[in-house]
């Protein structure tokens, strides 16, 4: 009989991170492999703390973490993991006096890429990928918020790391840039991204994790998240006080979540419906 060891790109078991008495991440277990994984949850759910732990920036207080088969609690393995991951923090500050080219090249230096010519080509490549080829030699202080976000994204992507950890990567991006981001991420190896934007998850992610209060409350495909609301969404031309959530749509009709009354016009649920129902269950 042979034993097979399955190595996930990310394997986290019972992760805990506390700030004082509050647990930002509370006994969370997850795995991630090739593809795009979406992390959903309200503000303060622990998404950023989780991503910081996965990026090896923050040490968990308890639990076990393996990134690309490496243990980040061991300094040498942590450094090796960092060579192979790209991390985009939430709304990062940049050096305003640098150009995008200077900054990404500097990040490449810090990622231990020693060949100058290779760095130049790689820096140019990632800046072109994020659509900054025309401004790569302009000072960062003169760029818009969306452009700065793309500079930071390019910095995370330099060296084509097999694991990308992105904290709200679409912040500040216009619809055109969001489409470009989707196309970029769909080509990447393994991506874990936190977002508030459910349409991003729907368009990009093969798997979704939903967090509330530091705990994982859902794990599955976007379709499975939407299916949570199967048979529990209906539309009407009036508000329904018995619904657990009601809102007016752009067509003027009302969309309701909950237990539909007899004869209600039940509609196909979306990812938003599934998420909202889950949110209602977690935070009544």
């Amino acid at each position: 009989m042979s034993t097979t060891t399955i190595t996930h790109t990310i394997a986290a078991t019972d992760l805990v991170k506390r700030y004082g008495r509050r647990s930002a991440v509370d006994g969370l277990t997850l795995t991630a492999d090739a593809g795009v994984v979406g992390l959903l949850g309200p503000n303060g759910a622990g998404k950023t703390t989780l991503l910081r732990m996965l990026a090896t920036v923050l040490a968990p207080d308890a639990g076990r973490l393996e990134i690309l088969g490496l243990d980040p609690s061991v300094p040498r393995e942590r450094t090796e993991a960092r060579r192979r991951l790209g991390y985009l923090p939430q709304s990062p500050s940049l050096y305003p006096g640098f150009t995008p080219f200077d900054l990404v090249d500097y990040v490449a230096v810090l990622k231990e890429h020693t060949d100058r010519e290779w760095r130049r080509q790689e820096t140019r490549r990632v800046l072109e990928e994020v659509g900054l080829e025309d401004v790569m030699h302009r000072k960062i202080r003169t760029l818009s918020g969306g452009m700065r976000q793309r500079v930071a994204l390019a910095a995370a992507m330099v060296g084509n790391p097999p694991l990308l950890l992105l904290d709200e990567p679409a912040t500040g991006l216009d619809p055109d840039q969001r489409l470009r981001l989707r196309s970029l991420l769909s080509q990447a190896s393994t991506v874990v991204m936190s977002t508030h934007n459910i349409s991003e998850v729907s368009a990009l992610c093969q798997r979704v994790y939903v967090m509330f209060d530091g705990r994982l409350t859902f794990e599955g495909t976007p379709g499975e998240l939407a299916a949570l609301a199967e048979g529990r969404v209906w539309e009407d031309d009036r508000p329904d006080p018995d619904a657990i959530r009601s809102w007016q749509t752009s067509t003027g009709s009302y969309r309701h979540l909950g237990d539909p009354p007899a004869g209600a016009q039940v509609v196909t649920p979306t990812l938003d419906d599934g998420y909202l129902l889950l949110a209602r269950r977690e935070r009544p």
Partner: protein
Amino acid sequence: MTRAWLLPTARASEWLPLLAGAGALAALAGLSTATGRSPIGLAGVCAAVLAAATVAGLHDRAGALLAAVPTSAAVRRARRLALLTPVAVAAWLAYLAVSGLTSTALGWPVAEHVALLATGVAVHAWSPERLAVVAGAAAPLVWAGLEAAPLGVERLDPELAEVLLAWQHHPWVVTLTALVATSTRRSR
């Protein structure tokens, strides 16, 4: 590889606090020359101001973006210090020379400054990330301020005063201790 990090690190470092500190010392030196009064009583505070300004230069605006690169925060800090410290020491020596504070008046004039700077760096290394620069810059000022504050430290038991003002009495011991403390900090 050395040249690859040198220029961007120099550009990424915060030079303004050090320039401001050096400017303040230049003004003081000019004032003392003009009035003919020696600023020897302020030497400790001046050394602390430069040390604090150097530690303030460790502030990294893009620290969050660089948090997960394989070049650790400790190495990046060491590189910044390698650039900032010689400038700070040069500014200190220039101040001593212009102010006429000779080595006979102060002993070995660089040692106290280096001790205060090393202390600030050690406090920076051991402080929580958000407070590191403020705590690190405050440490030399607070310590040197003990001498100038009206607490009468020098009137205390001589042994206690020697400990409280160790940066003056045993600057190289303080420097060595601070360096050990900094290097043993396991920064992520």
